[in-house]
């Protein structure tokens, strides 16, 4: 009986904690706009996370892109260049200029969310 009570208490704690995580725990002022949403769609369609990470989620063939648009060695223009032309490890997906802008808008949003907009 004690075991069942303990199990129920743990399940209750899990339910409460999940609700808290979904709301207060991840409350964030930064929401995606139209271009970033379009960029995210392209990101998903091309399975970009299989090579690149965002916040630790993703593969290791390519670099982490969480802060690619602002970090010292890369930046938004560099990201656009790689997206347009590909590289030794990066396939050339023949993105249009609009596609490239959308993906960079998405990455910019990711970067902004990392720096200070989350509560």
């Amino acid at each position, binding site marked *: 009986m004690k075991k*069942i009570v303990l199990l129920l208490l743990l399940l209750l704690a899990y339910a409460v904690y999940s609700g808290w995580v979904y709301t207060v725990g991840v409350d964030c002022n930064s929401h995606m706009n139209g271009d970033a949403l379009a960029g995210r769609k392209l990101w998903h369609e091309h399975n970009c996370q299989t090579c690149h990470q965002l916040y*630790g989620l993703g593969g290791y063939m390519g670099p982490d892109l969480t802060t690619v648009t602002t970090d010292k060695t890369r930046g938004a223009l560099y990201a656009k260049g790689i997206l347009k032309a590909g590289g030794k490890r990066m396939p050339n997906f023949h993105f249009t200029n609009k596609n490239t802008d959308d993906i960079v808008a998405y990455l910019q949003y990711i970067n902004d*969310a990392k720096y200070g907009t989350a509560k």
Partner: protein
Amino acid sequence: MERQNSVQSTKTGRLFIILGFSCLLLSVTFGLTASLQYLAPQLFVDHLSFQKTRPLHVFLAINWLFACISGLVYIIIPRVANRQLFSGKMAIIHLVLHAATITIVVTGFFLGHFSGREYLEFPPWIVGIIIFYWLIFGVNFFKTLQPNLATAPVYIWMWCTGILFFIITMAEAQLWMLPYFNTNIIRDVTVQWKANGSMVGSWNMLIYGTAMYVMEQVTNDKTIGYNRKAFAFYFLGLTNLLFNWGHHTYIVPAHPAIKQIAYLISMTELLLLANIMLTWTAAFRKRPVAEFEITYSFLKTADVWVLINLILAIAISVPAINKYTHGTQITVAHAMGATIGINTLLLIGCVVFVIEKQLSTQAKKKMNLGLKTMHISLFFFWLSLLAAGVTRSSGIRNNLYFAEITERATPFLRVFSASGIFLVVGIVLVAATCIPAIWKFEIKA
């Protein structure tokens, strides 16, 4: 009718295990191809690029675990319950839907259709089918077992927990489809880590529960599933399943309490580590009944990887260390050590338990050779990933260009690919013995 159900249960279980081994062989083939693509990114770039090989490898590896554990449960449950399987037809529907899902997803990946979600790259509508056949599995399981939790051994608790939480976490992983979740990256990433982290805990419950039942049988020690310590560690494991996922999110700017809770819960794993250390020699002195020597070898040697992975897991859960290891191949080393060194060895051990009495001496020798090859190659595989991870971490801290970091990690990636070849050889040796034996396996009346 009951006898028919029992035969049906074993037959379906065998087919599930063969499906699982097929997934495993395909998974390691794609995994090996992906590892070679680290060294030669242009390899098969037009038709089977890394963009496809990695999701194929991961998806098939996960399905190896689920197909094999489903098969084992179908074979074992009627024996544990001392009752026939509730519905043989439901088991067949489960098998057909599972096999069809694998076929559809693998074909889709070959054709380049992805949802773009880490680990669950298949289209979201597939999840509806997956949850549906898990509900069928759950109903068949509970109706057959009719468990009375108050008196049930710990492995029944673990099976119940595994089935329940797989369904919950698979559904939770689809919350991203709602705008409330998908327009806020912090919420999206955190919930994704939460669902994925707990899902791993759910399949661990199913696998460890089965291994515990098998260990009880091969050592003839009926206290294994009932003693207080076993239940204490079950509740420790469940607490980790529910709350430990947060150590993946240290770099996500979510509420600090998520990280603090995860850190606190992660450190409870020290109790598990202490228990392994304290009971290590006694556990190895315990001998199996003679006809289960190979089963015992797989189950006991998996303990080495439990120890190694536990030490690594505890280390990378410490924020000061996680800062340097997260986003590097050190995380992959942990995942590979757990999936191959623990889950795969335990599952193969449980499959061998079913067939061992029917194995010839030569087949047993082949199994032993396969096991040794797997252990040695996995050790180098694991070390090379750690070394590549340290190189990557150091490169990131020193603001090196990614190409330079990759160049520095190349020698370790060569060891990674070479040991991967031997790992595949070991797995093929074992699978080549298990598949024909499980195909011919017959239930004793």
